[in-house]
């Protein structure tokens, strides 16, 4: 019981700490958007809308899949749980693949972070928007990779019977972290794909 509690506390602290890590970037985005509204709206229009939308669907589906995996484990159905976790990994990899594709499209257009920016000029603040775009989606992508590694780890444990009906704390906590990564994206989606004025 005590053991459960300390792991739960630890994961919630990690999530709180990560939330503050992103909060700094959210604050920068909010400040710069209020100063350079036109450039930010134009920047949002330049991002590839369908990729943002599909990626949101992929992550939401993966969150459902990991919750489904917990349900299966609790019901004593490890095979179904394994398939659910495999689906989480497939959806996450799909998300990363689309993200990489979008970045490469942007880079081909000269849209790179920082003062090397050589894409179409959309007014003062354009390079700030894209620096934040790469910084925030990049930091989020790092978290997706970390989350996927954790999901792969619990998948192996489910297959080996180390996570079962009675002992599934690790799966629950990995799912908690995965939902957090998903929730961050739910904010990034409007900030970089929807709020174009």
């Amino acid at each position: 019981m005590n053991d459960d509690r300390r792991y739960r506390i630890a994961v919630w602290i990690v999530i709180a700490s990560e939330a503050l890590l992103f909060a700094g970037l959210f604050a920068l985005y909010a400040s710069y958007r209020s100063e350079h509204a036109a450039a930010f709206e134009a920047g949002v229009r330049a991002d590839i809308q369908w990729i943002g939308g599909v990626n949101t669907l992929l992550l939401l589906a993966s969150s459902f899949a990991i919750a489904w995996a917990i349900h299966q484990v609790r019901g004593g159905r490890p095979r179904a749980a394994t398939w659910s976790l495999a689906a989480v990994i497939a959806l996450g990899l799909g998300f990363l693949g689309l993200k990489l594709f979008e970045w490469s499209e942007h880079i081909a257009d000269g849209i790179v972070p920082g003062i090397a920016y050589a894409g179409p000029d959309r007014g003062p603040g354009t390079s700030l928007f894209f620096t934040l775009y790469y910084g925030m989606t990049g930091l989020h992508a790092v978290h997706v990779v970390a989350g996927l590694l954790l999901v792969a780890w619990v998948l192996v444990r489910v297959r080996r019977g180390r996570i079962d009906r009675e002992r599934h704390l690790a799966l629950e906590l990995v799912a908690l972290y995965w939902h957090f990564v998903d929730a961050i994206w739910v904010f990034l989606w409007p900030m970089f794909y929807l709020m174009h004025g």
Partner: protein
Amino acid sequence: MSLRGIASFWSQPHGLRAWLATHDHKRIGMLYLGTVLAFLLLGGVFALVLRLSLVSPDNALVDAHSYDELFTHHGIVMVWLFMIPSIPSALGNFLVPLMIGARDVAFPRINLASYWVFVLGAIVVLAALIAGGVDTGWTFYAPYSTTTRTATTLAAVGVFVTGVSSILTGLNFIATIHTMRVKGMRWRDLPLFVWAIYGTSIILVLATPVLGLALLLVGADHAWGLGLFDPATGGDPVLFEHLFWFYSHPAVYIMILPAMGVVSEVVATFSHRRPSWYGAIVAATIGIALVGFLTWGHHMFVAGMSTFDVGMFGALSMLVAIFSAIKVFTWTATMYGGSITIATPILYVFTFIFLFVFGGMSGVAVATSSLDVHWHDTYFVVAHFHFIMVGGTMTGFLAALHYWFPKITGKMYSEAWAKLACAAVSVGFVLTFTPQFLLGNAGMPRRYATYPPQYQALHIVSTVGACLLALGMLVTLGYLVVAVARGRAAGPNPWRSRSFEWRSPSPPPPHNFDDPPVWTDGPYDYDERGAA
């Protein structure tokens, strides 16, 4: 070493490997202690060179660029490699499990990882100092930090890595205090030092990531030319300052809260009295930890801020002074009417209270925006934060080192030498920084390598003070080393404290308590037992 032969954590299990890969919170605390003491020495050497170079107005000792690097290195080493980990990571690691009757911290392996991550970060920082140095000041202000040719990126990455270590340590303490307390110990039975570490840990886990982010951005900006804080691209340098101080102001409380916890323990033990108004001390501890997050703007009163914001940040800063004053009053109330044993730890506490009261009152002064305009970026501010944050942390650290030295080593140091060194440190400190209040008020700006001749006399007094302070510290190191080697046995509880950590043998065995600890009475139950 004469600690051999006792089945203590020092010798069991045996061997270097067992030390470097230890999961024992006491050994990890000692590894931290050795490391932070080395950095205290290094940062102190930087400070001494700075002070010596300021003896003459035209600075015959170092050129202007080296001077910039020296004060930057002094700040980076002292803040991130000494003061932040000093009390929490070194002594907190050693004491918190003992004080709550636990076998170890909640996550011993994460604890070991936090130490090695800290070492890694420190090595990267040192590499930056050697490979080109850093000349931005410890604050890394953009846009200069993104354009200087010095090794900003490497230093920023190094500090980021030590931040990861801080977060791991904070996480461990919070989980430990929540889940590892001995059966029967309620929250209101927690020793005040443990409360202080708890408040500190909240700051560690919530503020450090913002600093990490700000430093990563500056490092990336410096490496790849992002222009994120550069007005030429539409960026705003003041936004960096906001991110930086959102951590770095609470960081002041990371340094001072553990010191306050030490003071609460030492005052109770040496007055042989239950702390007056325990609840108020706890409330003030948590209050400082939380309100500390809302005061960062007072570092930017002259950087462009609305008068409304200035007023709010000023008022919130003064709220911290109220919490601090509550603590000072409860400490004095505890001592009042107690039968005080005069020994080195409580002498350091007296110095702490003196420095804290004057540093704190000058803090209220600089939080008053109209006055701050005059003092901003002068030696007045340097003197203020050295009094409160450096003086507070250092005297708290020294009080803790002397108070728990017999606990850690089982030996007693020479009380006469200790009192002498305490006098040198206390007088040296006041002598170093009081002239700096006067210099700042007279208009001497900080971070200048040279100055007009009319400031020379005060600079010389300050340098003399710094030498006395350094002497005191070296003497301290000397007699403590002698005590480890040849000190007399201290016995399990030389101060006759009621606190839980003294109920195990000194030095403690690897498993902390010989018998499974049983919670019977609180850490401050002096009155019933008449321990005095």
